[in-house]
């Protein structure tokens, strides 16, 4: 107790210096927390949004990756049913769904031409959760049973309903029930057009996606581009995303027989994963810089404390305190400041992370361009907070190491002169 009292004396003696150390540790840990929260958010967004939509894997037409135009129908799958059946015969499969994606043109009454990414999906699609859960008027593509329709061509039938976003509707002055006419090229390059009734409007957190996408029933899309039983991709999810590499490897040969190629999520999101990894590296580098700055401030401040108390350390050594114990006192001082400062940093950081986890932070087009929506939700991880706390405490300990070594090396005679 007496030794602890002596150890912490310097902190009480110099409140401004103590406050400076506490502030530098706390601010470092706080920013580490915030960046860790952002990193966690990026990972969470990636796995929740991108994998939820992109699936754990996809079957694409052979040569798909070599296409100049990603919307080209040249590599569309034509044996979709067989491929879906093949996937469904696998025990690891949780869900599989074909999509037909192509570009179409909408000519506004004012003769403006808008290019829209047209996606033919099943009415009960599960690969666009943000869209299906984000309907703001009308409903998502109704199934044939909803209206008892037969699926015949012509406005009013369920097969001719389309879903656009509220943002696009506002831009084009369209409402639910209005008609839009989409023009495209079929798989042979011949022009085709079809009129759809707007059955519903959605809104997601990505304005770019909202203003460039229209959903139409899969069968209508197939009819429009004249690829019966066709799809540009089949997205699938497995019981565990970790199974995806083995799963795709296992089915590669069979898929190839149907003129397709199978890819797992790591292949499909290579760029995004690299970005996630780069974010981690960036956070580590940032944390390292923060730690170096904090360690420098701490070293400096503890050195000042040590110089002030050098005579006292000399006395303690003279009356029989071992070098190691004096060294320990200096380290204890640093550790105490480190623990207290880190606790402060974590205590301030966690509520901020939790706030942005709940309300998100609007990164605008930056995160939209990465396919993650404009609102960026932070992620909170207790383990990460604990790691930041430990890192902050260790930094203070390292910062006080130099001061401790200095005391360790100073002779008693020299120390007593101070």
């Amino acid at each position, binding site marked *: 107790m*007496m030794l602890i009292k002596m150890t912490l004396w310097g902190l*009480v003696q110099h409140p401004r210096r103590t406050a400076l150390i506490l502030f530098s540790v706390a601010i470092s840990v706080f920013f580490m927390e915030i960046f860790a929260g952002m990193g966690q958010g990026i990972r969470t967004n990636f796995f929740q949004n991108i994998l939820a939509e992109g699936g754990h894997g996809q079957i694409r037409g052979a040569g798909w990756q070599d296409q100049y135009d990603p919307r080209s129908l040249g590599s569309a799958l034509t044996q979709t049913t067989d491929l879906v059946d093949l996937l469904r015969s696998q025990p690891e499969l949780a869900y599989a769904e074909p999509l037909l994606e192509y570009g179409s043109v909408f000519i506004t009454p004012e003769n403006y031409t808008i290019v829209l990414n047209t996606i033919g999906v099943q009415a009960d699609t599960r690969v666009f959760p943000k869209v299906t859960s984000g309907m703001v008027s009308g409903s998502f593509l109704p199934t044939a049973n909803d209206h008892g329709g037969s699926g015949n061509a012509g406005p009013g039938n369920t097969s001719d309903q389309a879903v656009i976003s509220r943002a696009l509707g506002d831009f084009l002055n369209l409402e639910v029930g209005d008609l839009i006419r989409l023009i495209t090229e079929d798989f042979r390059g011949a022009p085709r057009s079809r009129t759809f009734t707007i059955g519903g409007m959605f809104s997601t957190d990505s304005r770019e996606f909202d203003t460039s996408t229209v959903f139409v029933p899969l069968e209508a899309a197939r009819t429009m581009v004249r690829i019966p039983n066709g799809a540009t991709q089949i997205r699938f999810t497995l019981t565990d995303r970790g199974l995806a590499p083995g799963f795709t490897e296992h089915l590669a040969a069979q898929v190839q027989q149907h003129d397709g190629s199978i890819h797992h999520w790591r292949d499909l999101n290579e760029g995004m994963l690299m970005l996630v990894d780069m974010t981690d590296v960036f956070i580590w580098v940032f944390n390292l810089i923060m730690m170096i700055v904090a360690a420098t401030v701490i070293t400096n401040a503890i050195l000042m404390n040590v110089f002030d108390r050098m005579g006292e350390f*000399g006395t303690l050594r003279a*009356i*029989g305190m071992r070098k190691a114990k004096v060294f320990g006192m200096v380290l204890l001082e640093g550790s105490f400041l480190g623990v207290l400062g880190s606790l402060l940093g974590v205590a301030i950081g966690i509520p901020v992370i939790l706030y942005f986890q709940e309300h998100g932070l609007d990164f605008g087009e930056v995160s939209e361009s990465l396919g993650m929506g404009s609102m960026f939700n932070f992620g909170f991880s207790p383990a990460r907070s604990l790691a930041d706390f430990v890192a902050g405490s260790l930094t203070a300990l390292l910062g006080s190491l130099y001061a401790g070594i200095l005391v360790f090396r100073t002779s*008693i005679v020299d120390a007593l002169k101070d």
Partner: protein
Amino acid sequence: MLDVQNVSKNYTLGKTLIPALRGVSFTLEQGQFVSIMGPSGCGKTTLLNILGCIDQPSDGRVLFRGTDIRNLTDNQRTDTRLDQIGFIFQSFNLVPVLTAAENIELPLVLAKVPKQQRKARVQELVELVGLGDFVKHKPDELSGGQRQRVAIARALVNRPTLIIADEPTANLDSETGEAILQAMARLNRQEGVSFIFSTHNPDILQYATRHIRLKDGLVVEDQLVDQVADSLASQSSSQSIDQNPQGSTP
């Protein structure tokens, strides 16, 4: 108890070698009360530092209870200081955050003495040096004389065989300084502790039983004064420091 054999100590100042001690030799018997006198820069403090195992001679040997202190490791020298040697400093060198009692107790804590025994020993010394009700005061609440009493009690607390005092009265007024010297002389007799103290004040030499005079790093005089000490001893017992327990501020 202490055998100083041809001890030299040199310091370097830039490229210049400065001799602080140049072949000092003497022996110290248990229970002696020795003054080391000489002008500033004659090597008094250097000699005391070497005798107290806080510095090493450049040449020569110091045998403390038969052991050459140069052969001891740093921890062994530290333990020797803790168990065998007490220090009294000119500037008291008390730990500011600790109370008077805690300052006295500190060497016992370092020696890992059980708490009950520590408290008893501290109480004993508080009474011996006459600190009275000031045990819970911190150093900055004490007068110079009281601080030096705390320092004396701290030096004595582990029952050392040797106490080294470097100009113990230099920061005190003459009356308090005299009272401190009387206390040291009395403890020398009562506890049988050897004292070596440095001073450049001839008025306090009367308390010592042996005078060693240094000049330019050499012993120029080494004189036993038993008869003087005997007469002073009887005087000091009647003028106990207890008559002036609070001392006075320097």
